[in-house]
Structure formats: C-alpha cells, structure tokens
C-alpha cells in the first residue's frame, strides 16, 4: 500500500515503475504455479469427495431396487433413521475418545517433561528416550493392537495373574470390554500427545522456574503457574491430535472390543458401507461425525486456543 498515493481526483496512482509491477506479477504467477498442482489434488480428492458424500447421504432407495442401487434425491429422513439407530455409538465414540485423550495427557505429560526438561543436561539419555518415544511409529499399529489383544487375552499372563490376585473375577475378561478399547486408544495415540508437548517443553526457559523459586513458589506452584501455562500450546495440539483420530478409530474397537458395549461409530460406517450396502446411511453417519468433530474442535479452539497455533 505504501507504493500508492491518492491523487486530487481521488484516483489511486501507482508509484512503482513498470518493471517493478512486472516483477511483482511474475512473482505472483510463480506462487500460483507452485500451489496449483497440489491444490487441485486437494480439491478433486478431498473437497469434491466431501460434497459427493453429502449428496450421497441424501440419496433415496427406489421401490423394488436391487441392493446397492440408489437414486439422487433429497431424502433428509436418512439422517433421522441412522441417528435414531446409532446415536449411542456416536456418543460412545466421543466418550471413549475423550477418556483416552485425558488419560494420554496424564500419562504423556510426565513423559514429555522428563525427556524435555529433566534430562536437558543428559544428551545421550535424552536422545535414547526420544527415539523410544517415536519407536511406536516404526512398527505397524495393527500389529501392536493385535499384540495387546493377545497380551490381555483370557488365557494370557496378565488376565491369569489378575484372576489369581482376585482383582479380576474368575469369569471376568480383559478384552471385549470398554476398558480394553479405551486402553488401546490411549496406547495408540499416546505418541501424538507426547510429541507436541515435548516440542513445546523443549523451548521452556528453565530460568523462569528458578525465578519463581526465588519468589518462594514451591515446585507445585511453579509447575501450575509457570510450566503448565507456558506449555499450553503443546497440550492443546496434543489433545487435538489425540481426540480427532481416536473418535473416528475403529481398529481398537474391532480388535479389542468387538461386542455391543464397545461399538464405535467408525465400525458402524464401515459395516453400513460394506456389509449392509447402505451407502446413504453410511454417508449420513460420516457426515454427522465430521460435522460434530468440527463443531467440538471449533468450540475448543475458541475456548482454549492460543494464537500461536493458528
């Protein structure tokens, strides 16, 4: 804007030379060339598909149609039908995801704090633990979930020991319970919680803690008044990175739960698409899931979000 002035007649005059304007235009063109190919991919295979999903959720099934045959329509009743049947699964998904997120925060924060702050002077140990933090990414998440299933199995060591100690009733199970599914979710998304917090605490200036100590703050006070508020952006990012995928996950529910008390919405969407061949119903549920997460996340960002993140 500093390159333009208002003339007496109120027109805007450009003070830049023709070459400068040309260079500017060229620069803008380069930017567009860089962005367009990837943007096209996003438009064609993300934005358009979401619209297709929305329209598919309103398709109707004509009288006497064969399985999987639907016609474009505006059948809003699809939403009422699937929500009427599956609202408990939707609520359960959000409930499980919320508990898993809180647990992951309670477990993950001390991990991040230990590695990022306590071990700052111990480069080697810090490096080793950091590699261990990302180690789960090196191995297949379905294999790990399946491993949990076998570790927690009825005839497994853990269940047998718990039964021996009478923590678990003799006819009790560890798998096929909400407990197993939530534990699996917590486990699988824990690194997504730890890493952002770690990145954030890594920048924590520990002299601030000394300063608060000098001002007679105990370790607890220092933590809650200094460390925790400063690491809020990391906690914020970690909770989002845990909650969103956890709410839509169905691998844990399928492998570790697989009964009616543990069904998550992802399982329902999958089975309506592939087993029941009810495309409109599946699409409607997907759309409801997407919209509820967007609404929840927006409220969360408004309430707790920091500028740093956006």
């Amino acid at each position, binding site marked *: 804007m500093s390159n333009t002035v208002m003339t007496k007649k109120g027109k805007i005059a450009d003070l830049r030379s023709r070459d400068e304007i040309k260079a500017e235009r060229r620069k*803008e063109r380069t*930017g*567009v*060339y*860089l*962005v367009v190919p*990837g*943007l096209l*991919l*996003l*438009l064609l*295979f*993300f934005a358009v*598909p979401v619209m*297709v*999903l929305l329209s598919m959720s309103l398709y109707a099934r004509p009288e006497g149609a064969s399985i999987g045959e639907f016609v474009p329509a505006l059948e809003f009743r699809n939403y009422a039908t699937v929500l009427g049947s599956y609202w408990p699964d939707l609520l359960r998904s959000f409930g499980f995801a919320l508990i898993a997120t809180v647990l992951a925060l309670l*477990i*993950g924060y*001390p*991990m991040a*704090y*230990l*590695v990022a702050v306590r071990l700052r002077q111990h480069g080697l140990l810090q490096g080793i633990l950091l590699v*261990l*933090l990302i*180690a789960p*990414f*090196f*191995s*297949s*998440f*379905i*294999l*790990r979930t*399946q*491993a*949990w*299933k*076998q*570790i927690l199995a009825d005839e497994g060591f853990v269940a047998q020991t718990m039964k021996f100690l009478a923590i678990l009733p003799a006819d009790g199970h560890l798998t096929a319970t909400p407990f197993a599914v939530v534990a699996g979710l917590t*486990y699988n998304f*824990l*690194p997504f919680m730890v890493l952002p917090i770690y990145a954030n605490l890594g920048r924590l200036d520990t002299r601030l803690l000394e300063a608060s100590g000098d001002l007679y703050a105990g370790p*607890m006070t220092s933590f809650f008044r200094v460390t925790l508020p400063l690491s809020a952006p990391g906690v914020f990012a970690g909770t989002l990175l845990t909650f969103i*995928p956890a709410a*839509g*996950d169905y*691998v844990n529910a*399928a492998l570790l739960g697989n009964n009616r008390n543990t069904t998550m*919405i*992802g399982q329902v*969407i999958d089975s309506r698409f592939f087993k029941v061949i009810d*495309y409109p119903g*599946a*699409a409607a549920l*997907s759309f409801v*899931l*997407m919209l509820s*997460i967007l609404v929840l*996340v927006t409220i969360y960002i408004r309430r707790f979000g920091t500028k740093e993140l956006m």
Partner: protein
Amino acid sequence: MKQKIGRWIIPAIAGLAFIYLLVPIAYIFVFSFNDAGRTNLEWRGFTLDNWQNPCGAPAVCESLVNSLQVGVVATIVSTALGTCIAIGLVRYKFRFRKLTDVLIILPLATPEVVLGASLLAQFLNLGWELGYTTIVIAHSVFCMSFVIVTVRARVSSLDPRLEEAAADLYSTPRAAFLKVTFPLLVPGIVAAALLSFAMSFDDFIITNFNSGTFQTFPKFIYVAATRGIPAQANVIGSAMFITALLVVVIGQVMAYRKRKRLEQV
C-alpha cells in the same frame, strides 16, 4: 521428604509409561521367534525358521510388496506437491490464500473414516475400480497435508535475509533458491517424506475403504487377525522396526558429528 517424592514421581510415572509404550513392540519381536505353526497365539518354543523364511506364510510378502509400492509412490507425490505448496504459501502472495489454508488444515481435522468414506463415495460415483490407483491417490492426499505442515514450519523458520544476501552477491533468484534456500529445506523435506512413508505404510482405515481386493500389509494383518496372524507378519513388523530404528539412530549420530565439527571450526 515431600521434595524427594516430588523428584521421583515424574521419572516413576514416565518410566511406567515408557514400558506401556514398548511392551507390545517387544511382544511382536519375541513372538517372531515363536515356533507357531498357523496361529501365533501362544508360546510354543523358540525357532529361527520364521526369520529364515519370512515369506513362508501365504500372502505376507505380496502384501508387504504392495504396501511398499504404494508407500513409495504416495510419498513421492505428496512430498513433491506438498513442498511446492509450502514454499508457495510462505514465500509468495496470491489470492485464495485463506481458502488454500482451510483446504490444507481440514483433512487434518477430519477423522480417517470420513476421509476414506468420502473418497469411496467419489470413486463409486466416478465408477472407478478400487485398487492400486485409488489407494495411491487416497494416500497422496492425506499425506500431503502432513508434508505441507512439516515443510512450511521449516520454510517460515528460514531467514529471508539469506536470499537477499545471495541477491546482493549477484545471484539470480533461481540460483539463490537452488544454492541457498533449497539445501536448507532438505532436512525438513526428508523428515516430511519419512513421515509420509510411515503414515502410508501403516494406514489401515483409509486403505480399507478404497482398496477393493488389493491387499496391503496392515489390511492383511487385520483380516488375518480373526484367524490368527502368522509369525512371519511379526518377522516383517520387527524387521521394519529395526530398519527404521537404525535409520533414525544413524541420522542422529551423523547430525551430532556434523554439529561437533561445526563447533570446532
């Protein structure tokens, strides 16, 4: 006394958490040596057979090769396009920037089921047959958002004065980019590519929606889980783990040496 408990409580919780994190990985490794037969459910004795014959169980190696192929192509596509977008977004001004931003963030805030379901709806509508191509497209799209976020952070942390300095030394913009900016971006791009590959290789949910009969490694395990997973899957999982671990450790050691060398100068 209270102080002492305070000092130990964090390492104690974190230590238990690390064990929690690593138990299944150790379990997979140990059971790759199980003389399992068809179902690898309980310990039946130590053997090296599975490691000597990793393709022994039907379909394990085909699904592994499929996953590697999808992963490599999706990584190349998403890293190339994502890096371009990241540079374009930070360094250039153009219209529709806000819209571009939203389009990049939205896939990250969308659960995989929805991404998978919407792509499936699209492919059904287009009448495309599900298989290799549709998975590569799906993986490229969801990996690209991660690439953009990773590389963009790196681009914004670069000092624009470096390019100005190059220009002062009579470098053309192109040469300044190739000789100054790009080499500085390489670590970020490599990290993004590794992340892409890991995500593509490990993806189950999106793949399950868009693969038809095409088998990937995670899909193979998921399907096999109901009958019992062959020990060879554990071998492949463990081998991948060790490879990735070595890559990271060697990378860290090299970065450490380079830092030391620079400090000495």
